[in-house]
């Protein structure tokens, strides 16, 4: 039992800190001005995250990789990669929230606690190897996020929260339906188990062609449920509204962490559970089609956006399409499952830095301007050179222009598709990158070409500066020296082979 709890340590630390944050919030409510209280709570959450990181590092140092709770959770390179990714994202988001958090009024404590809870849920997701564990973790994440989206308590934010909740509930039902099929087919909820014990992987591997229809059906349902999390077409409807209405740090968190968590589960279920050769070509085709449609729809609609948060929303749909390219790139033919998965995990790592950087810059700019309209970004290059430079760098990275992380990620993931003989998908993807260049560069142009309406400088607080600097540096460093992150991603997905 104790080793099991030990392996759950990083998540437990976060959950406990979340509880402590709420208690501290209660205790501090009397006699402390809100800004100070908010900052203190933020530091407290950061301390919790640092504790969680320390525990995760100690797991590695003590060589404690392995399964926990009868194989329903696992600590392996894959889950550890995502543990660090989510914790890093949470740090940056919390740093970027310290100023913004004032708008939550008396709910600052709840906000930080929810971030910690959602993060712990995502970490569990990455380590889940049992459908029930995965489902519970997914709900922990999702419910925290529904509340976070509505936390501003104004019309837009409430609408965002409600919309997210309703669509989320439907998608969860679909996912559950698919999971029920898998359970019915295999008699177990375990994705993978030691030889001799029943598991979904074993059932699928032993299944004959007569089960194919049922397997494909359950696969489609599970994929549809998860597509909501990863925000790919046709389950993307919520994205622009929720991004626009919810607090910007929450949108940042959703666009990066929630998406990564969704893809982590997709990889886990489809690689660990459903990777039998006789159906994997089906899901390869399914994902390839979804990828092509997603990037096209996202990019084309993004062209006409005038609000930066909506623009980033559609861009995140398009980027999800790019990631899907990696999911589709299953070179089942030569058995190299790690190929596409490595691309996905690496892309998610670079995307975390890039998109977080863009959102943090938007937080910094919008909170000063009081506007998310792209036209108001005019002259930002003069009003706040470093801020504009960081945002431009992130947008260039999203476009996939060197020397940024996005460039390497784009080349890498398209290369996995070439190696899997998906030439048509690569052509669709590269042509889409042309469309994307137009709207990303238009924002850059707005900041540098259009003269500012007023000369007043746009200052940046230290916490926003630190988080933005970290994200932008990450974008640049990964762009120049990508090999360490690539190796980490490949080690992470090697657990599937």
């Amino acid at each position, binding site marked *: 039992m104790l080793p099991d709890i030990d392996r759950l340590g990083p998540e437990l630390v976060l959950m406990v800190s979340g509880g402590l944050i709420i208690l501290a919030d209660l205790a501090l409510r009397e006699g402390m001005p809100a800004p100070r209280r908010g900052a203190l709570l933020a530091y407290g959450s950061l301390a919790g995250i640092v504790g969680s990181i320390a525990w995760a590092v100690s797991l590695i140092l003590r060589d404690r990789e392995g399964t926990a709770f009868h194989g329903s959770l696992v600590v392996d390179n894959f889950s550890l990669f995502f543990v660090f990714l989510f914790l890093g994202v949470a740090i940056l988001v919390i740093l970027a929230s310290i100023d913004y958090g004032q708008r939550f009024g008396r709910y600052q404590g709840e906000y930080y606690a929810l971030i910690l809870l959602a993060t712990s849920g995502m970490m569990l997701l990455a380590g889940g190897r049992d459908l029930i564990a995965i489902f519970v973790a997914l709900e922990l994440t999702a419910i925290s996020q529904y509340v976070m989206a509505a936390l501003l308590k104004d019309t837009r934010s409430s609408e965002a929260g409600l919309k997210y909740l309703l669509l989320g509930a439907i998608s969860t039902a679909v996912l559950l339906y698919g999971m029920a099929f898998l359970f019915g087919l295999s008699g177990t909820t375990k994705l993978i188990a030691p030889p001799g014990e029943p598991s979904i992987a074993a059932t699928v591997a032993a299944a004959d062609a007569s089960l194919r229809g049922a397997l494909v059906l359950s696969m489609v349902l599970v994929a549809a449920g998860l597509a909501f999390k990863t925000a790919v077409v046709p389950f993307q409807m919520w994205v622009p509204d929720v991004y626009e209405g919810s607090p910007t740090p929450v949108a940042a968190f959703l666009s990066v962490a929630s998406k990564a968590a969704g893809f982590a589960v997709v990889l886990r279920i489809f690689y660990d559970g459903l990777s039998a050769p006789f159906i994997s070509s089906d899901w390869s085709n399914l994902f390839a089609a979804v990828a092509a449609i997603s990037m096209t729809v996202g990019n084309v609609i993004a062209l006409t956006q005038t609000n930066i948060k909506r623009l980033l929303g559609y861009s995140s749909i398009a980027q999800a399409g790019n990631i899907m390219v990696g999911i589709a790139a299953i070179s089942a033919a030569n058995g*190299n499952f*790690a*190929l596409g998965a*490595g*691309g996905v995990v690496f892309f998610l790592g670079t995307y975390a830095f890039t998109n977080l950087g863009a959102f943090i810059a938007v937080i910094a700019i919008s909170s000063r301007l009081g506007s998310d309209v792209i036209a108001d970004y005019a002259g930002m290059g003069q009003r706040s050179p470093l801020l504009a430079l960081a945002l431009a760098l992130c947008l*260039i990275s999203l476009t996939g*222009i*060197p*020397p940024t992380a996005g*460039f*390497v990620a*784009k*080349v*890498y993931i*398209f*290369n*996995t598709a*070439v*190696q899997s*003989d998906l*030439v048509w998908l*690569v*052509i669709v993807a*590269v*042509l889409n*990158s*042309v469309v994307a*260049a*137009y709207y990303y*560069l*238009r924002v*850059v*142009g707005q900041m*540098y*070409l259009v003269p500012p309406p007023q000369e007043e400088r746009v200052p940046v607080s230290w916490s926003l500066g630190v988080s933005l600097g970290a994200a932008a540096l990450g974008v640049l460093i990964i762009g120049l020296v*990508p*090999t360490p992150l*690539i*190796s980490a991603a*490949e080690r992470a*997905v*090697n657990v599937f082979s």
Partner: protein
Amino acid sequence: MLSFIVFLPLLGALAIALLPRDEEGRARELAASVTLAVFLASLILFSLFDRSEGGFQFTEQFRWIRASEAGFDIHYFLGVDGLSVVMLILATFLFVLAVFVSWGIDVRPKEYFAWMLILETGVLGVFTSLDLVLFFLFWEVELVPMYMLISIWGTGRKVYSAMKFVLYTISGSALMLAGILILGFAAGTFNMVALAQMEITEALIPLPAVFFLIFAAFAIKLPVFPLHTWLPDAHTDAPTAVSVILAGILLKMGGYGMIRLCVSILPDVAHDYAVWLTAFAAVNVVYGAIVTMRQTDLKRLIAYSSISHMGYVLLGIFALGQVSMTGATLQMFTHGTITGLLFVMVGLVYDRAHTRDISVLSGLAPRMPVIATGFVIAGLASLGLPTMSGFVSELLVFLGSVKSYTIPTLFAVAGILLTAGYILWMLERVFFGPPNPRWADLTDATTWWERLPMVGLVASILAIGIYPATLVPVIEAGITPIVARLG
């Protein structure tokens, strides 16, 4: 050595970006010293270059990206052969002059010179990369600096033109990326030296499709009719120095890429489709020349004449002979200097008259004898007058291509006549018509920074025209191994 040349401009750009706000004026001096240092370094490189030896020299190589699972092995691999060293000299030379041409920039000078130096790093990287992915990386570096340079410091519909340039370029490079990845997967390496020695027989898609995916990027850049429509807009609306770089260097990246990637790596496909491509070259020459005739804007006129002259490059390359390809490469060099000079002169005229409308400009020669002289020399060089460099390169192209591709060559030679027509007609109208009283108080080019680029370019045009052997043996050293593979 090569890394120093390629990345020194980038360091310069960083230094300029870090200049304090009240010392903005220093930016141009810093940019001038950096580009001069890079030019000198590349001259030293040129003098150390061993002409007797084919193959790549001054190579530098280390592993940059390694993805063992994905079979993805990308090297930082630089080197030059006779072809790239000539392009390197051209680029570093024109960047020095471009900085002097920009001496009068007073709008946001720090950003201007920083972008220009970043652009130089990208361009030099293209000419020296020997790994496909690295080549592609440098190829894309150019995008953002060019977008900024045209759309901030340009004139007219600058934002439109800048975006058009970016979208055309990025469409080409998107297709090239697909082509490169397919090629690299088929060959199992991205190493361009290895690829150029390998017999690639099949890929995921038919080899001609791979060829044209990659060719598309270069055809847009060169440009090849009908993909040329970005060029007149970008040229016309760009600031003078950027037009010089665009015409002088960026177009050459297209021709260079065709030789280095398309012909070297897929010689058989190049051979199979040479008939079509030379036909396109003839269309380029004649169509470009005819459209040039109709232009009323000086800059647009030169822009269209570039399209026509790039047809010679296309013809020379895909005539696939030793002489023709040497001529094409030399033509890239000479067109870079000649058109550079033409744009410099147009810039000087525009700075004074604030118009480029040929029908309004008239009788300028008495008012500005120095500018008129420079313009006339540039014009004569452009129409291929003997003793000027354009003559040598065009002659080599025609000599090399006339035997195997007679009809396209005849059309291209006819282009020379058209060129003489539009150049002389333009010179006559602008400089030698009846003096227009509106231009009575215009002054000549008097400052050193206006005259220096002019003198430098004229000197290089004459030097190569009179003694082409400074470059030709070097180019041949680079072309010979490529032609040898064509069988």
